[in-house]
């Protein structure tokens, strides 16, 4: 019986430990969001836009770079 209780105790300790970790991470991120204040939403959008633009540039570079020529300084 002791092993049975120990097994379930181990499971719930792990689970609640992980929930605590997520809660702490959430709190830290909430503080970060507060630091960026009203700029959060626009900043978030800007990050996505930047990512899409970088991706588009990368795709264009790969599409145009099939000739084997190199650009930029060596």
């Amino acid at each position, binding site marked *: 019986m002791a092993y049975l209780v120990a097994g379930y105790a*181990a499971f719930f300790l*792990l689970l609640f430990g992980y929930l605590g970790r*997520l809660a702490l991470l959430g709190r830290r*991120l909430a503080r970060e*969001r507060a630091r960026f*204040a009203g700029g959060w939403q626009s900043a978030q959008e800007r990050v996505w836009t930047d990512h899409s633009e970088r991706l588009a540039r990368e795709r264009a570079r790969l599409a145009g770079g099939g000739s084997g020529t190199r650009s930029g300084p060596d």
Partner: protein
Amino acid sequence: MTVALWAVFFYAPTERTMGDLQRLFYFHLSSWWLAFAAFLLVAGASVCWLRTRKPGWDDAALAAAEVGVLFTTAGLLMGTIWAKPAWGIWWTWDARLTTAFVLWLIYAGYLMLRGYVDDPTRRANLAAVLGILGAADVPLVYFSIRWWRTQHPAPVIMGGPDSGLHPDMWITLGICLAAFTVLFFWLFGWRRELARDERVVEALRQRGFAEGS
């Protein structure tokens, strides 16, 4: 989870050979099934990231890996606690236990790798490759007790004519699997949201965003 615990301790019949100790089976098995699902999800999300380069897939892979490691740790811990009274030893390097431990190591390494690489794209690419390769261990763990003779018992589900469960044990297992599935998707969704916020904060920091801007 409360219903699952009630079913495990009060509804499921007591097993003849092992007695009450066998009640560890329900959470042990559910942990492993969800861990397997999590790691297959990591592989799927990683393939999607490599194909589409949409950051949401990388967030999903991270969330699934973290929850998968949680369930793997739970499965390993409950397994060792069960092994001591059942086999007389905490651990043995048989095929099932070794492949299971390797699976845990692979995805613990996956999470460590993510912590060591600074560049987000490089980190996501490296993690995706490891996430896909690591999932190859999932079928090895699953089939190990069918392919090799192991200290770990043969499968009781789909394990041949001598295997099987009492109908009430099936119902208990079903309740536990349902509870674990709900728990998994709740944790996964929460972690994925946090991963998205983490990435945005990291990107803002790297760009030197002014505070309060």
